[in-house]
């Protein structure tokens, strides 16, 4: 059984026909070709597939694409205007060396956007707590924490 859905991704409307079992993460990557959203564990633990669902961070691997019908999704591609104009959060990750292999980075960025909006001046403890839903297997957490701190200063 297939379903025709219309949703907004990074401000652009898309209509596609999908099977009910298609995960939102696969929809974003395979149907829309937006491969910035990464797929790590596919059971909600690693956080690599984190996107914004109506402005709130969520695991795209734990949502079916059909559930996003009529909703608004933001992926990491929606952050920067172009490659010369990075979002201040991205710029901070660049400047503070907040990534090694980069696999976890899109998920971390999409978790930190609502976090910094809600808490514009976080302590290091609060940043670490907010990062706990995203795993970095390079284990470069110190620089990620530095990057988020830097971003909070830039975005204030």
């Amino acid at each position, binding site marked *: *059984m297939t*379903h025709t859905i219309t949703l907004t991704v990074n401000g652009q409307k898309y209509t596609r026909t999908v*099977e*009910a*079992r298609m*995960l939102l993460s*696969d929809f974003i990557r395979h149907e829309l070709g937006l491969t910035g959203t990464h797929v790590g564990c*596919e*059971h*909600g633990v690693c*956080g690599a597939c*984190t996107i914004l*669902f109506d402005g*709130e*961070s*969520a*695991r795209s*691997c*734990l*949502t*079916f694409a*059909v*559930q996003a*019908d009529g909703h608004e999704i933001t992926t990491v591609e929606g952050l920067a205007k172009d490659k010369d104009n990075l979002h201040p959060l991205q710029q901070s990750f660049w400047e503070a060396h907040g990534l090694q292999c980069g696999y976890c980075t899109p998920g971390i960025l999409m*978790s930190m956007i*609502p*976090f910094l909006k809600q808490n514009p001046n976080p302590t290091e403890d609060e940043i670490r*707590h*907010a990062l*706990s*839903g995203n795993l970095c297997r390079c284990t470069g957490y110190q620089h990620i924490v530095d990057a988020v701190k830097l971003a909070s200063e830039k975005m204030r």
Partner: protein
Amino acid sequence: MKPASFDYHAPNTIEEVLDLKHQYGDDAKFLAGGQSLVPAMNFRIVQPSILIDLNRVNELSYIREDKNVIRIGAMARERHLEFDSSIKKHTPLLHEAVPFIAHPQIRNRGTIGGSVVNADPAAELPVLMLALNARLKAKNKSGERWMDAKDFFAGMFTTSLTPDEVLVEVELPFSEKNTGWSFMEVAPRSGDYAMMGVATLVTLDKNKKCKSAKLVYLNAGDGPVEAFEAEKLLEGAVLDDKLIESAASHASEKEINPFGNIHASIDFQRHLANLLTKKTLKQALQRAVKEN
């Protein structure tokens, strides 16, 4: 890591939900927040042939005060419980415990009804339902019924809902006067499943004696586990360190039944239960005195 195929229904009203569930019974599973169901489907541990998505049933999503209770629709998100001012004021135990549920990314989707119906012994919300004397309302095509939390949970991942019923509302009585609360758990990392946790309430009488106490544990048996005997030890007495010590020993040695897992042996879980019982009782007592 892809779910098996299924037929998908996304009704807009409770009436449509009940019709579908009446028609399909056990073949159909409800999709609430999906934060436990979808991982299980991705692993193909669960392969429902029909999913009834409750996310478009707006009438199931509310939190409101009604005389001396709080009414919470089954599809209220955990993130909404976390920031709700009525919950903070009238059921401070719930307010304190919700941030322990996984991560914000999960709480943004996860719902109170989904977690309660999933009845995972390691989850926070079933424990809180028991500790807070919640009542749960279920509906089917022929009517509705209320259940006390203690009758609702029926074992590991099992509730007393029948195949044609849907949970629609959770009712929480306001916290009694002179009541202190405390929720604590120990997890390997923030947001992970806890190795042990306890929800504790202490209500004092005029003479500062314990009028009633609640001790409910997670990951301590095949559902939320209440330590009735330890509660009885505390009731009617002045809560000094010695009594708190013996209640903690009794609950952790005699009343809980943890299974142990890769992160914690049974002995370690009992040890944690002992420590957490003492710590939460002391904090709850302190808060009850302050409320007095």
